[in-house]
């Protein structure tokens, strides 16, 4: 499978200046709103520590809580299915729908179904799938994956949306008024809710104690998807379990504040049991999560509540766009999750970071994201997945910097100018440094030469 070239993709994103500036500023605004909201809560840092501890406890007792959830959900009247991977998940959905003769599915936002590539699987089998979240719908109509886990179409300007809607749902191509576009999508989507055979959501949380599926949304589309059709399917990654309903308050206080800088989502819906005469199916999906749980350096990534705060704050993400990562999960959290799916394909992603650590500091569940990025780089180097040019540069650098004589020969080229310095000083890609930056002029003397001349008593 071809490696994702993040640097190359980012270069294209940067060339579209209007889009870049909007994208950077829009997400920075979310970050600032998040700061303001968190500042209003004196116990914010305690909440983060508590949320992290609850997640770590749950993940280290995951099998027990999953079984408790299954018992409670079953007792509530839901059907619980266990999917070991994406293929099993998709097959479950298809089989459940077939058993009901269901042909149309209205679904709320779910990164898990993107991860499983469920939509093309179902569409190839004659199922009509309608994304009902505005951002997801824009992306579906434009035949693009979401670029952000919370705001899927954030890389698009409203004029882009006007173009997509004009081509697909017949809006006025010249009208890019946000309210007009949102209302048009609403009117377009509404009939599908009424005629759909099945509805689907993901889950923000699954409460073991009560068997409840908790979905946090702002548009009401999840509730319509669940409550209108006679069949409801919830797809849930196994890491979404929390032990008790009382723990939910900790996470709900942090989720939307971290994500969008709003105190809470418009709706926090608890789906516990099927309505009379309907069926509720819950698919618990592993798809690599158990394996990740067994990785000593990386299992903390399973604490993630998918708020996207790490993406909003990431200076690299804001300037390269989610699609440049070529994966379901982009930005800092994507960088540490994606290699577990395919190390070679995603081997450039852990290098799409300055290791600045802002992601770790905003994370509401205290995932040590930048430390995991650092660790992934070691795994990638160990498994010989570094690009040749970098591998070669590091070997040369390692040799030169470990040998004072070689090092001095390399840097003590007084007045010769940087072009005569060995390539390792600029990490073997001098051209890349100089493309948009001046290189520093070499001084007459290195510090060491100055020291010997002025200070040494030897």
């Amino acid at each position, binding site marked *: 499978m071809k490696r994702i070239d993040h*640097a190359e993709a*980012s270069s294209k994103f*940067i060339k579209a200046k209007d889009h870049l500036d909007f994208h*950077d500023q829009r997400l*920075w605004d979310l970050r600032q709103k998040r*700061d303001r909201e968190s500042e209003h809560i*004196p116990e*914010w840092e305690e909440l983060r520590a508590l949320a992290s501890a609850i997640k770590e406890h749950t993940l280290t007792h995951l099998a027990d809580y999953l079984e408790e959830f299954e018992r409670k959900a079953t007792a509530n009247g839901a059907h619980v299915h266990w999917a070991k991977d994406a293929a099993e998940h998709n097959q479950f959905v298809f089989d459940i729908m077939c058993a009901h003769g269901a042909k149309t599915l209205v679904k709320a936002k779910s990164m898990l179904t993107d991860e499983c590539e469920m939509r093309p699987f179902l569409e190839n089998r004659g199922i009509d799938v309608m994304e009902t979240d505005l951002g997801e719908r824009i992306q579906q109509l434009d035949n693009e994956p979401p670029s952000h886990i919370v705001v899927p179409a954030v890389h698009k300007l409203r004029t882009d949306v006007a173009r997509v809607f004009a081509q697909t749902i017949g809006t006025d191509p010249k009208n890019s008024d946000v309210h007009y576009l949102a209302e048009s999508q609403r009117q377009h989507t509404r009939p599908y809710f009424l005629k759909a055979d099945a509805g689907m959501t993901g889950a923000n949380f699954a409460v073991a104690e009560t068997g409840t599926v908790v979905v946090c949304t702002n548009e009401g589309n999840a509730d319509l998807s669940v409550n209108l059709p006679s069949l409801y399917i919830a797809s849930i990654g196994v890491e979404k379990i929390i032990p008790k309903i009382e723990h939910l308050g900790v996470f709900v206080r942090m989720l939307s504040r971290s994500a969008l800088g709003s105190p809470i989502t418009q709706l926090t819906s608890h789906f516990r049991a099927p309505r009379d005469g309907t069926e509720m199916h819950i698919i618990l999906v592993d798809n690599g999560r158990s394996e990740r749980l067994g990785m000593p350096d990386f299992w903390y990534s399973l604490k993630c509540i998918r708020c996207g705060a790490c993406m909003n*704050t990431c*200076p*690299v993400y804001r*300037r*390269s766009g989610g699609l440049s990562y070529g994966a379901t999960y982009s930005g800092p959290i994507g960088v540490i999750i994606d290699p577990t799916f395919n190390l070679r394909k995603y081997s450039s992603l852990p*290098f799409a970071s*300055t290791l*600045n*650590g*802002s992601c*770790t*500091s905003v994370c509401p569940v205290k995932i040590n994201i930048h430390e995991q990025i*650092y660790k*992934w*780089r*070691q*795994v*990638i*180097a*160990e498994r010989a997945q*570094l690009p040749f040019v*970098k591998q070669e540069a*590091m*070997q040369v*650098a*390692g040799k030169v*910097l*470990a040998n*004072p004589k070689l*090092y001095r020969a390399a*840097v003590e080229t007084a007045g010769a100018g940087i072009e005569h310095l060995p390539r390792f*000083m600029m*990490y073997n*890609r001098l051209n*890349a*440094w100089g*493309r*948009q*930056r*001046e*290189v*520093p002029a070499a*001084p007459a*003397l*290195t*510090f*060491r030469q*100055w*020291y*010997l001349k002025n*200070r*040494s008593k030897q």
Partner: protein
Amino acid sequence: MKVALFVPCYVDAFFPEVGIATLELLERLGVEVAYPLEQTCCGQPMGNSGCEKEAAATEALFVKNFAGFEYVVTPSGSCTHHVRENLTAVRQTKQTKEVRKATYELVEFVHDVLKVREFPWAEFPHTVGLHNGCASLRALHTAKMSEINEPFFSKPIDLLSKVKGIRFVTPRRPDECCGFGGTFSVFEEPVSAKMGYDKVMDHQKAGAEYIVSADMSCLMHQRGCAERMGLPIKFIHIAQILNGARA
């Protein structure tokens, strides 16, 4: 107090004036400073690239050069961070552990160890924007991070505010990364340069004549950007200001 000066490779090669200012400042503050002559680098370029195997010999040399000193002081937050948190390629002997523990970034050494707050010789009659490198800020935690809900503090401001004539301006995104990131600056050149351009423009718009930082690597990148952009903004290391540089 037995203190060794570690001058990072890029400071040695490109910015000797920063090494000189660090040495002179420490001496002014009454510290006897040794400069081990066989020093090269802390191993960070290889370590940050995931190349532990390639970093091991350089890290071993670092330990050898700096073993036995009570403190190892360096004008670089990211090197300090590497030594303290990531000097993992070399065998973790008692000596290695001692060197890792003894290593301090200049600002935290002056602020926390020497506890000096007066620099009567220092005067810098200019408007400056402070750039805290990400390792200094988020790993060494030398100032309040904008992401964390904690009371304001800033060790570099504590020190700089004692310099006569200095004026501060604050850019709109004071602690966003400038995009240097070591090897990131060349392997992710498009984003790195864009971040650098945005950073220097932010300081320029805030009215800064100088960008001052405890991290020269950030400044090397930012200066390269500013020069290419044709901006008049200037760059100076905090050691130079504290040591009495006037411009």
